[in-house]
């Protein structure tokens, strides 16, 4: 039970970082959303074999992390959760694309391996960019900004609720699991034949709980329209942030940095 509670706290620890004070934290959510969105678009726009051109994009998360004082381990730990999915997506390339791309220290590196690394690296960049956005912007401000950008209200509300109810769902599951285990001394873990009713009960209980949480939110004036918040003007520092992040990214996309590599090395 305590373990689940600490796991729940762990989920929200990234968001707690968003309450820190730094130059990046103080920027308008719109510019942070825009630069993150542009970064992701540019990263995925590269061909899957263009690992060399992707490499300089690492500077975006590195500089942002340094400026916002976001601890590396928290971000890496969360990226590690997505790693199996990335490997699963790229492993078939290693099997089917065996043409040699280049030779490194006597080893033939196939096109498939380059593609696999490209997928993992790309995922790392995109996931890190999103995690950093959450780490430097409170979730309520991100969703308020999404509403101001006229994203369909239903999607933003669903996203908000899903994010908030992770803890509710885990809490209910852990309570039920503890009660189950206390009455099943001879068994280890949840038995297959009880899975169905356990999942069904969990769904009903979490739905019920979610409704109570939503009622508590409504009682304190929540309505999705008002959740847009007050419009805040962009400051000079916000424009500077936007220029300092977006212009180098666009330049890196347009200029073929491989030529620069050959000059440097």
């Amino acid at each position, binding site marked *: 039970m305590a373990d689940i509670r600490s796991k*729940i*706290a762990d989920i929200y620890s990234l968001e707690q970082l968003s*309450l820190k004070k730094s130059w990046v934290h103080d920027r308008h959510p719109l510019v942070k959303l825009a630069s993150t969105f542009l970064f992701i678009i540019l990263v995925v726009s590269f061909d899957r074999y263009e690992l060399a051109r992707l490499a300089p994009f690492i500077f975006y998360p590195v500089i942002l992390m340094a400026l916002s004082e976001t601890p590396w381990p928290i971000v890496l730990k969360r990226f590690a959760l997505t790693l199996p999915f990335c490997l699963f997506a790229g492993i078939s390339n290693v099997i089917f694309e065996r043409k040699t791309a280049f030779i490194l220290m006597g080893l033939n590196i196939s096109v498939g391996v380059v593609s696999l690394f490209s997928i993992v690296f790309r995922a790392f960049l995109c996931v890190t960019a999103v995690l950093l956005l959450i780490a430097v912007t409170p979730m309520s401000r991100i969703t308020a900004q999404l509403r101001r950008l006229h994203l369909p209200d239903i999607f933003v509300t669903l996203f908000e609720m899903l994010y908030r109810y992770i803890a509710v769902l885990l809490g209910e599951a852990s309570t039920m699991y503890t009660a189950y285990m206390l009455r099943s001394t001879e068994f280890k873990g949840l038995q297959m034949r009880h899975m169905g009713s356990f999942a069904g009960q969990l769904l009903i209980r979490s739905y019920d709980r979610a409704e109570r949480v939503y009622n*508590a939110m409504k009682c*304190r004036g929540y309505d999705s329209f008002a959740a847009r918040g*007050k419009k805040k003007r962009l400051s000079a520092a916000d424009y500077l942030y936007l220029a300092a992040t977006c212009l180098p990214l666009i330049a890196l996309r347009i200029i073929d940095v491989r030529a620069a590599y050959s000059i440097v090395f």
Partner: protein
Amino acid sequence: MIEIKNISVTYPDGTSAISDISLAIGDGESAALIGANGAGKTTLLLSIVGVLPAERGLISVDGIELGKKSLSEVRRRVGMVFQDPDDQLFMPLIYDDVAFGPRNLGLSEEAVEKRVDAALSSLGIAHLRDRSSLRLSGGEKRIAAIATVLAMEPTMMIFDEPTAFLDPKARRNLINLLRRLPHGKLIATHDLSFAEEVCPRAILLKNGRIFADGRTGELIRDDRLMDECGVEALR
């Protein structure tokens, strides 16, 4: 002031939850709502804040009649503290939970911060400001849940089983706290000694109707009356 005139609430399956209830709670008055499980206590509280709409009757708060247009104003004036504080604390930090209501009122961040600090300080939990609710004790959670409502600066407060899950010390702290709060209060509870200490007036509910309304000390010691309501009298 809360005024309720002849309200009835029926659940979607046709079950009548409360019927023909009329009562008034004055400014600064504290009243306990007592009744057996299923008597309609929570339903009545939820209908006052418009979460469960009454199909008949009229509810008004400080002269404002509850309706679609006045819903947000009524909810600003009547703060509801739910039975389970976990229902009310869903943000990463206590600060955010307390700020949730004021932010929904459209206040500036400076004004929100002032309200949060004032609410937390008045309840003596300013030190919990940057803590996560996941790490609080049951008593601390209960006080924090009250702070989330106080930050809305309501004129009336309604509580659903506020002493549930509390140990004796936390319960005592809560009693002292509620006695200090100057707001009008309607408190649904099974805890009769708590009701006697906090509320001079008690309203007994039975099967969704008001069965008795009077002085708490007298009602909760009336064996016959309490027995008819399905509640054990205080001895």
